[in-house]
């Protein structure tokens, strides 16, 4: 029965339709739109490469936004994945209350995307907010987190990092699959804890590190709620990520063609980085059982 091809295809049909209707068609359409000028009122007007030309040569805000997005991803992704791995490593021992800690570290990733938490962040990083009150208690100068363009980026980076829980849970599962005998053997040979971590743990879970990095990268490039609510892209566009710029161009200024072009730049960026990661994974990601043939 499992070889029943028609039946299998029938079950998968909703997905096929969904991909065609809600993914592929919009995907092609947004590409087509990016060569037009369209304001929702007059019909779209074909303008060739004009949108791309404009954003490449005549749009300083695009350049700013691109830089902000790259900086955000560059800071936030390694921080989130790094924290997730570190904490998962500490949790990967017989510990009383492990369930409490798992839940405690997981809750921020569950709630973190909500507007309520973005509101919370505005208070936490306000001029006389929670973080500054703590800094002053420690005898440090308060920082104008939300008003100073040098610090504003950190508020959204920290919000992203704070939500490391989901990546941590995936790491935890991977770590628990690493065979204890490997560590025992290493210990007999006198390997230190740090050596064990770098020479056994990390190489064995590279597929999971890779998975987490790719997924978190895709998320980082789409981050919207944080910058929209906490900093509103400011000050001086220091947190004006591409997702925000795309939203503004498309749904506030109704430059739909330009918005489409921008979103294709974002897509090319994410796609390019993902392709590069997959290519580079040949050199640093090891899948058990195929290590030898592949190299």
């Amino acid at each position, binding site marked *: 029965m499992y*070889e029943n091809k028609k039946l*299998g295809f029938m079950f998968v049909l*909703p*997905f096929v339709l*969904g991909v065609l*209707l*809600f*993914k592929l068609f919009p*995907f092609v*359409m947004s590409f087509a*739109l990016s060569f037009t000028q369209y304001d929702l009122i007059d019909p779209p007007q074909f303008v060739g490469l004009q949108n791309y030309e404009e954003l490449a040569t005549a749009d300083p805000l695009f350049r700013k936004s691109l830089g902000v997005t790259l900086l955000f991803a560059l800071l936030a992704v390694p921080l989130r994945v790094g924290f997730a791995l570190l*904490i998962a490593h*500490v*949790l*990967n*021992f*017989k*510990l009383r209350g492990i369930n409490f*800690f798992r*839940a*405690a570290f997981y*809750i*921020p990733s569950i*709630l*973190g*995307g*909500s*507007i*309520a*938490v973005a*509101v*919370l962040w505005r*208070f936490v990083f*306000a001029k006389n907010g*929670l973080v500054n009150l703590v800094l002053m208690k420690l005898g440090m100068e308060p920082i104008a987190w939300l008003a100073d363009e040098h610090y504003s980026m950190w508020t959204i980076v920290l919000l992203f990092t704070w939500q*490391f829980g*989901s990546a941590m*849970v*995936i790491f*935890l*599962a991977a770590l628990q*699959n*690493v065979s204890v005998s490997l*560590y*025992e053997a290493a210990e007999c040979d006198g390997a230190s804890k740090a050596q064990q971590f770098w020479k056994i743990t990390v190489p064995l879970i590279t*597929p*999971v590190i890779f*998975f987490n990095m790719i997924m978190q990268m*895709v*998320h980082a490039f789409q981050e*919207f*709620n944080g910058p929209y*609510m906490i900093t509103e892209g400011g000050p001086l566009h220091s947190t004006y990520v591409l997702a925000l710029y*795309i939203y503004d161009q*498309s*749904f506030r200024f109704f430059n*739909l063609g330009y918005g489409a072009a921008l*979103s294709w730049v*974002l897509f090319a960026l994410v796609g390019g980085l993902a392709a590069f990661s997959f290519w580079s994974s040949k050199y640093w990601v090891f*899948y058990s059982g195929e290590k030898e043939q592949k190299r």
Partner: protein
Amino acid sequence: MSRADIRTDAIDAVPAHGAARPPEPLVLGRDRGNPWLRYVALIAVAIVMLYPLLWLVGASFKSNAEIFTSAGFWPDRLDFSAYAKGWKTSTEYTFATYFLNSFLITIPRIIVTVISCVLVAYAFARFEFWGKKLLFSIMIATMMLPLIVLRLPQYLVFREIGWLDSYLPLIVPSAFATDTFFVFMLVQFLRGIPRDMEEAAQIDGCNSLQLLWHIIVPMLKPAIISVIVFQFIWTMNDFMGPLIYLASVEKYPVSLALKMSIGATEEVEWANVIAISVVALIPSVLVFFAAQRHFIEGATSSGVKG
């Protein structure tokens, strides 16, 4: 880059559910490290993780002045007036309306998501059919496609068919298993379940729909609970979708209403905003704790976005 080209083995390497739980966590013989040191580190991190949320609860009872002068949790007085005022809002509707709206989006969406994703996952995990490999690659690829690229054309399509300012654009796509992350999670889970039971049931004369309903769905329960929890919380948290598709205030879900309560007036009664933020988080927190055990297990079986 051709989306279908993406190698799927990276994701296959993520442990399937059955393999994710060895009986004993790792304990080493000689050097176990200092457990106290480990606890101190974990508790310190836990405080940093949870304190902002706790502070929010405490601050909802404080006066405007106190909110910005005390980092402590305990308010001077226990004053629920901020909740009452926040609940009323500056609009003609109360948060009761906005919560109801949120549920009117969330509940149908969960139902269609579970049905469509279980069917598709069943097909991927248990059937051979033409184009299966390609379709699976496409599924993985769409998990990596930035949704924002699709927003604009989707908006135009829904505008064309007259669905703007209704909940349909927020619900209907999910009926076509477009939340591919869930399909992936369910497939990973099914892969970890041996087929013995199904084979036995087949010999007893079950057809594949009976098999799905009587054998697969009960076994998938923990994973389905994860899907429900995630979809509930993500839909409650969703902001951009309603922001784009909904125009009339009477249809706003909680996320939009909360944003509105900040933007509405110049002199914001911060305590009110904080109180409503607390209330807005309650459903998600309750659902998380109610399902926490299954949920973390289910999430472990695959990848989770946060």
